[in-house]
């Protein structure tokens, strides 16, 4: 089995995949990054779809425009939309998925039936889910009229067309919020170190926290952040926030994906050795303590991988939003949709490439460490 000829055949059999993925994944990603530094589709003298189009290098101009140009507000809206979608979709799916996992672990009669039901939306296309929920979320019918079945008053929430904006913020406050988040993280770490009486790393963390505070007090943040024109303009005229129109889309996404979380966490639960649970119970652990001290810690790696999988799905989200509120809806637009509208509707290939590159970068940041950890654990 180790003779030279067979090993050569083995290598040869793998070659088509290497070459195809090399071209269709890595070469194409590289090309997208390259296009993002050109004026392809921005230069009126060069028809974008002409086979002899000349693309001129413009450096990082496309990125600068996306971040600062007033007419590119749609892109910055898509980033805030994606952020809120990410946060609430991940929290909601994991919350519901974990709840289902723990409930179905209680020797439920008809367990297999319930599992089949809750996982079934995973077999549907996001386009199907989107079409269904779009009908359910019509303002004068659907879910809003569910209470009328019981003789109650209907709701009047305008779901996908809502103009409400919650959790409003302006760009100039972002450094402040980031400082708060950073400080809260440091405080959490510091408390944990103190509880473990790890004084040396506690000192390290505290000094880091002091540096963060000093940076903020010194106004360095504002020096980095505020000179951007857009920060000043959009802070005064167009506060950003959590668009209420996203709520329906988040609900539909949770409906579709919580069964997936349940499936992964259940696999994790089944991996916990039965004697571990029994030993804890014999030792007099109350059942609540069995959960908080044994089951949940054992599930932690599985929860982390679902956060990463769902998180990277929300960075790429396209079809669900497309089917629910259309590709041109400013209240629900996502970066993944802008790549489509800018590239395939408006032929602004360079800008579409820049947005695609930003999405790619975000996905790589969360997926590469994950893959690294997964592969390391398996070997």
């Amino acid at each position: 089995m180790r003779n030279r000829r067979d090993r050569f055949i083995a290598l040869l059999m793998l070659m088509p995949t290497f070459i195809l993925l090399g071209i269709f994944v890595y070469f194409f990603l590289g090309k997208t990054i390259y296009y993002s530094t050109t004026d392809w589709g921005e230069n009126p003298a060069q028809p974008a779809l002409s086979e002899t189009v000349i693309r001129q290098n413009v450096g990082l101009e496309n990125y600068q425009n996306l971040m600062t140009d007033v007419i590119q507000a749609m892109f910055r809206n898509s980033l805030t939309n994606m952020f809120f979608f990410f946060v609430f979709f991940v929290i909601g799916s994991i919350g519901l998925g974990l709840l289902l996992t723990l409930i179905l672990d209680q020797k439920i009669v008809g367990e297999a039936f319930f599992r089949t039901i809750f996982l079934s939306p995973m077999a549907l296309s996001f386009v199907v889910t989107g079409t269904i929920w779009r009908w359910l979320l019509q303002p004068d019918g659907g879910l809003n009229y569910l209470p009328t079945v019981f003789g109650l008053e209907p709701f009047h929430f305008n779901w996908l067309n809502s103009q409400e904006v919650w959790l409003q913020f302006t760009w100039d406050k972002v450094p402040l919020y980031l400082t708060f988040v950073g400080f809260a993280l440091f405080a959490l770490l510091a408390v944990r170190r103190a509880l473990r009486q790890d004084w040396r790393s506690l000192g390290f963390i505290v000094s880091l926290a002091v540096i963060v505070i000093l940076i903020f007090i010194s106004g360095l943040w504002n020096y980095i952040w505020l000179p951007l024109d857009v920060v000043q303009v959009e802070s005064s005229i167009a506060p950003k926030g959590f668009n209420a129109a996203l709520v329906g889309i988040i609900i539909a996404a949770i409906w579709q994906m919580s069964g997936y979380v349940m499936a992964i966490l259940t696999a994790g639960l089944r991996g916990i050795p039965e004697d571990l649970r029994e030993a804890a119970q014999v030792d007099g652990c109350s059942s609540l303590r069995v959960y908080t001290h044994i089951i949940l810690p054992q599930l932690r790696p599985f929860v982390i991988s679902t956060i990463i999988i769902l998180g990277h799905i929300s960075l790429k989200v396209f079809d669900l939003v497309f089917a629910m509120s259309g590709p041109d809806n400013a209240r629900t637009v996502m970066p993944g949709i802008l790549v489509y509208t800018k590239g395939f509707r408006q032929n602004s290939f360079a800008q579409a490439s820049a947005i695609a590159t930003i999405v790619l970068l975000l996905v790589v940041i969360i997926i590469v460490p994950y893959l690294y950890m997964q592969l390391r654990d398996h070997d």
Partner: protein
Amino acid sequence: MTDIDFPGTKFRQYTLRTALHVALIVGTIIFLLPIFVVVNTSLKAPAAINLATTWHLPAEIHWQSYVEAIEEFGPRIWNSITLVTNATLLSAIIGSLNGYVLSKWRIYGERILFPLILLGMFIPYQGVLIPLFEFMRAARLYGGIPGLIIIHTIYGLPITTLIFRNFYVDIPDEMLEAAAIDGAGFWDIYTQIVLPLSVSGFVVVIIWQFTQIWNEFLFAVTMTTGASEPITVGLAQLAGGEAVHWNLPMAGAVIAALPPLIVYLILSRYFIRGLLAGSGH
């Protein structure tokens, strides 16, 4: 499985367990409401559909919407069938060979190459869309199903390779060594030992690829046009216009959902294995 040993008497325990079951049943009903609404609306006559009566049952069953939806889809149903059959089989066969090589043959640089293959599964496809569009146009494959078959075959290779590799790792090496000593070569081992043991691996991969490709939308909407579109694009159009008669998109949604849903319901055990493989477990 652990029982929550609720404090108190057996009676209290019994009540709590009953309450748990009742809560679960209520939750399931809420979870299934969207399904009820789709089927319900798809069976109403267009004139009988108005927003305020979403939850009323149809006065009489109206099957006509399904006929109309199928007519509206036209060639798109067959397009999806052609696409799914070809791309699923191609990516499964190549994935099986890859998995065999990666699990049973030592390949130089495998520790770097395997993660690079896997990463192809997670990249945002928006990141390859524009060069892909260019390539498809240059290769005269843009706009049709053959091009889409190639696309789905290639981008399906990471997951099919991963599933087969993990599947073949469990085949004992001694078995293959013994065959090799008897003079079996690369292909003999594959066709006589590995392939006959791969049936459930193929079932997992085929089900996974089938549902993924059938349900896919991004490549479908950017790389095909008009009569060459698959069913998901047809459904988006059916539901996309303003002031649509909702019976039609609802019937369309049922038709588009049925094939993967039936496969899932019959073979959910294998579907879950594909699902877990895709998340690295």
